[in-house]
């Protein structure tokens, strides 16, 4: 078992090398190599999933030292329960994305085949690392490979700008994480997890570590206010890549955050340790969900929804940290379980939804909601899988999204026991925001699925759409099945992940997890999804049976009633487009209610002058003001400083000599005037 992770990582490197050579071969070989790469990645991902399950069941694997590494210490790999939990996600999502790519990403240039296995390898290395340097190495590999994937997409200026910003944030993340790890390692510089865990940061160092990790891992995970790049970059990449970017990579960033802040640095921290996480998490959840309900592009919408769910997971992590600090072990375990379960669930259903968006783009030729519609007729299987995914993302019981959010709300509802009034008020606010985010997310998912798959077609291209081929269908169905399965069996899953919960909360596992139900405490309410599903099934079946008995007539088709409006003229085969709500129209209520302040939303009616018969136009829009407000001053400052630096370059030779002379004289003066120096 110890050799397995190394073997799998090496396989990925070999696949990357194979991908690099794909371009050198004529077409049939090139395609065969592409198939080999994607198939190989899927197989390796399956291996990761198996390994993770094995590790979860047997308690993991002790760190092993690799025979190479930086000059001061060798690299080390390990697999404990926390790593295994996230590795499971990587394996499952990677498998599905690989299968999808096997069908849709075969004829791609080698510059995209090369980074794909490296991307998987980077994520796996981050998860498998048993010391902080290896962790950062994997993290950077992941960032770079994914950047190469984003940057290698069809080259329009906007995509390149997105890739540039993506890279900027990735570097920023590294620039934050490296000093954070350095601070944790301290003077001794022992970066192994065991060494770091033994000496959690204290005092100002703890504050600095918290801020740096939050900024570093938070930027990669897309937490507000560092989320600006995410809705730009995730959609630019090809389908399976954006699926893994959103589904898994953000989780790897959360893993890094959890590992550094909760597991390694979490012991004996004060009460406020988790508060920044909670605040950022709640803010991300609301803003992400609100934006997801406003965006017009399916992939951008899904990326925004990722911000929401990442926020919810972070909220859970922060809560776990604080509850642990307050010695409320079982509650902390509950919050940690909520975070872990939701991370897993979101990773899978978001992978599903991104693959759906890619398949829809392939079939219907567009990502814009305003060009889709009525796809449920053309691609029923995809529509069904998408519905499961959207419902899970909308946190509907008994699917996977609800299980995590139920646990999270239960943890929030119990968190008042911490006793600090300020913290209690924060918890109340976070509870309200989490609920708001969940409901907003549901509205966004409804809008996504309803506009893309229901209604009348909004463009002729959608009529020619075809349902997915078997391989794609298998990938989608598998993910949909997992969304159901995780929703139905949170208890056994959390029992399996007891070690991971323990690592985050310091409490050995969720106390009240049973095969059929989970519960926050002995006297607390039970959530039993499997019986619930049985009950719903029975009731539904009963209703169907009853209606068959009472009302046996078959349904008849007729023109839509549509409030009595007349049938559309023949030159509008799909009806008047204006009578069907579009992406902006559907978003209008929430834009008016909440968008004004948070998203700088605006609406203006342009009426023609009296006598003009032109129709009035309604213009509406929004933009997320936060990233701009954050980045613009920094960019301006950098520009100012570069201009100032340039002035130094523009000097004549005489002045340059003066510069050196001045330095010398300054140093001599210092020497002359310093106490203990020349003029004693």
């Amino acid at each position, binding site marked *: 078992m110890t050799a397995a992770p190394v073997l799998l990582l090496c396989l990925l490197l070999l696949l990357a090398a194979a991908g690099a050579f794909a371009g050198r071969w004529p077409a049939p070989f090139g395609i065969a190599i592409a198939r080999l790469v994607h198939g190989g990645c899927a197989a390796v991902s399956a291996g990761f999933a198996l390994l993770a399950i094995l590790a979860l069941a047997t308690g993991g694997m002790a760190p092993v030292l690799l025979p*190479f*590494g*930086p*000059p*001061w210490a060798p*690299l080390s790999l390990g697999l404990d329960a926390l790593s295994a939990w996230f590795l499971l996600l990587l394996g499952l999502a990677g498998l599905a994305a690989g299968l999808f790519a096997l069908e849709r990403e075969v004829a791609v240039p*080698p*510059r995209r085949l090369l980074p794909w296995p490296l991307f998987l390898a980077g994520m796996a290395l981050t998860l498998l690392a048993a010391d902080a*340097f290896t962790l*950062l*190495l994997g993290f*950077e*590999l992941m960032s*770079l490979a994914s950047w190469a994937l984003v*940057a*290698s997409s069809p*080259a329009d200026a906007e995509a*390149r700008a997105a*890739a*540039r910003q993506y*890279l900027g944030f990735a*570097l*920023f993340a590294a*620039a*934050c994480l*490296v*000093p954070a*790890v*350095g*601070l944790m*390692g*301290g*003077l001794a*510089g022992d*970066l192994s997890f065991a060494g770091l865990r033994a000496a959690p940061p204290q005092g100002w*160092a703890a504050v*600095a570590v918290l801020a740096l990790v939050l900024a570093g891992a938070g930027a990669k995970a897309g937490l507000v206010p560092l989320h600006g790049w995410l809705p730009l970059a995730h959609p630019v990449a090809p389908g399976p890549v954006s699926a893994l970017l959103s589904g898994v990579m953000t989780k790897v960033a959360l893993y890094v955050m959890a590992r550094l802040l909760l597991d390694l640095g979490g012991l004996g921290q004060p009460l406020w340790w988790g508060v920044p996480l909670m605040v950022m998490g709640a803010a991300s959840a609301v803003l992400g969900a609100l934006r997801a309900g406003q965006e017009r592009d399916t992939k951008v919408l899904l990326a925004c929804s990722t911000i929401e769910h990442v926020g919810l997971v972070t909220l859970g992590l922060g809560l776990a940290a604080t509850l642990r600090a307050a010695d409320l072990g079982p509650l902390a375990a509950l919050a940690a379980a909520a975070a872990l379960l939701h991370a897993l669930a979101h990773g899978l259903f978001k992978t599903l939804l991104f693959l759906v968006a890619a398949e829809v783009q392939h079939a219907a030729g567009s990502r814009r909601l305003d060009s889709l519609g009525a796809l449920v007729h053309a691609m029923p299987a995809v529509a069904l899988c998408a519905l499961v995914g959207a419902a899970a993302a909308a946190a509907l019981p008994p699917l996977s999204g609800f299980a995590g959010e139920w646990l999270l709300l239960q943890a929030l509802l119990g968190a008042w026991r911490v006793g600090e009034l300020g913290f209690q008020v924060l918890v109340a606010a976070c509870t309200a925001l989490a609920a708001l985010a969940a409901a907003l997310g549901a509205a966004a998912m409804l809008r996504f699925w309803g506009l893309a798959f229901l209604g009348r077609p909004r463009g002729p291209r959608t009529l020619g759409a075809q349902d997915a081929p078997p391989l794609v269908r298998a990938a989608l169905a598998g993910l949909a099945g997992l969304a159901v399965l995780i929703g139905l069996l949170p208890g056994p899953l959390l029992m399996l992940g007891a070690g991971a919960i323990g690592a985050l909360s310091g409490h050995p596992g969720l106390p009240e997890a049973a095969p059929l139900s989970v519960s926050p405490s002995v006297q607390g309410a039970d959530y039993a999804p499997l019986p619930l599903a049985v009950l719903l099934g029975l009731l539904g079946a009963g209703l169907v049976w009853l209606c068959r008995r009472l009302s046996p007539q078959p349904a008849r088709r007729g023109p839509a009633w549509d409030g009595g409006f007349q049938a559309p003229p023949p030159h509008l085969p799909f009806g008047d487009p204006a009578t069907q709500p579009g992406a902006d129209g559907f978003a209008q209520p929430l834009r008016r209610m909440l968008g004004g302040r948070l998203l700088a939303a605006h609406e203006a009616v342009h009426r023609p002058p009296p006598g003009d018969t032109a129709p009035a136009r309604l213009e509406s829009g929004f933009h997320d003001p936060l990233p701009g407000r954050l980045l613009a001053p920094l960019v301006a400052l*950098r*520009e100012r*400083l*570069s*201009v*100032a*630096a340039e002035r130094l370059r523009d000097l004549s*030779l005489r002045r*340059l*000599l003066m*510069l*050196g002379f*001045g*330095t*010398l004289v300054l*140093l001599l003066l*210092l*020497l002359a005037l*310093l*106490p*203990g*120096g*020349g003029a004693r």
Partner: protein
Amino acid sequence: MMHPALLVLLPFLGAVVLAAIPRQPVAALANIGFSAGGFLLALALLALPREVEGLLHLDALNLPLLLLSGLVGLTTAVFSAATLPAEGFGPRAGRAYHAAFQLFLGANHLALLADNLGLMWVAIELATLASVLMVALHRTPAAIEAAWKFLMLCGVGIGLALFGTIVLALAAQPLTGGGAASLSIAALGRVAREADPALMTLAFVFLLVGYGTKAGLVPLHSWLPDAHAEGPMAISAVLSGLLLNAALHAILRAKAIVALNPGPLPPGALMVAMGLASLLLAAFALWRRRDARRLFAWSSIEHMGLAAFAFGLGGPAAMAGLLHMLGHSLVKSALFFALGRAIVLKGGQRLAAIGGLNLSHPVLGWTLALAILATAGLPPFSLFASEFLMAQQSVARLPWLALPLGLGLLVAALALLRTLQDLCFGPATADAPGAPPPALGEWAVLAPAQLHLLLALALGMALPAPLAALLAEAARIAG
């Protein structure tokens, strides 16, 4: 038998021979031959005892630098042979070029090998003169301007360094009893603890300002970008890869001596300050570059600053500094190799003229992309390892310095990667018509660059144990 002096004499002999060969292709091959001989001799040094031999010495600190110097000399000679047709030298200029190249290599080896500070100074001065000649070879006004600036600034710098050397000898003289021993690094190391700290500090100030000019430390860096950008393509590689190292090595020797008995201005603090200034200024200056070779010359200033910073911190960070020096030489010369070929292909060194290499020339494009990534300090190359160690040491010991350090690293890396995206991933620009093909074939450009990258990878991630031990010992010497 093998003697370290051979490493110096062979290139000097080469310089004489090459100055006499009129046919450029032959001279280029002979140049490769002499450089290969130098590299083999450098490898043979591994078998020699590490001890002082007359005016020369061999220890753990200069051994890796000598190996590197031999290697970079060889690869640059190969690359130089490949790009020679594109330079368009006349017969006289060609002879001068090859002779100066070998002269430079020999001087560089001598500067590293010298146990005598005076000899080291002479060697560095020689290397400077050789490189000034090479920079001026193209005779354009811009080249003359660059060379004049190089000469004037470094002339002053070298003068100040000599003054520092003299003061150091003066400080040691009562203890060593005068003679050559006053300038022997080994002897100075033995007596430095008893020497007058104020005088030693005075000496260090002059040595720092003097050799710091050569090493391109801000605010003494001004000659560097233009000198890198105006000479023949291969010169950028040896300037960045070797000359800067030799100068920094000289500072290190001085620091190792002075730090034994620090006066009012600890040498480490001065190096940290100058290192940070270099890092920050270069990081911001990178954003305003329009010329590709100047851009990466500025990045050399940044990296020299980083190495100086690490050595200034001392302790385990010295290891980071050493790794950084070695790694920077490797990746930066690789970068200049790939960039040189790209400049020939695209017919200009303005950034706007070069774009989308990955589309038009995939192998060259990816090589250049990897070299830039490595230069920006991204894994898995050795600069990542050294910058990581540097940052870790800095936050653990002087946390407030980590802030400007991190800022500088971030801003610089962002600028480099922005360039990377335009050079390699953006829309492809048109090739220049009639760009001459490389003289020995495409491999002569790519193989040196890729070899360097591979070595940088090994340096960062899989250093053989004996070499790691050697580096640790060297870090201990550098303090």
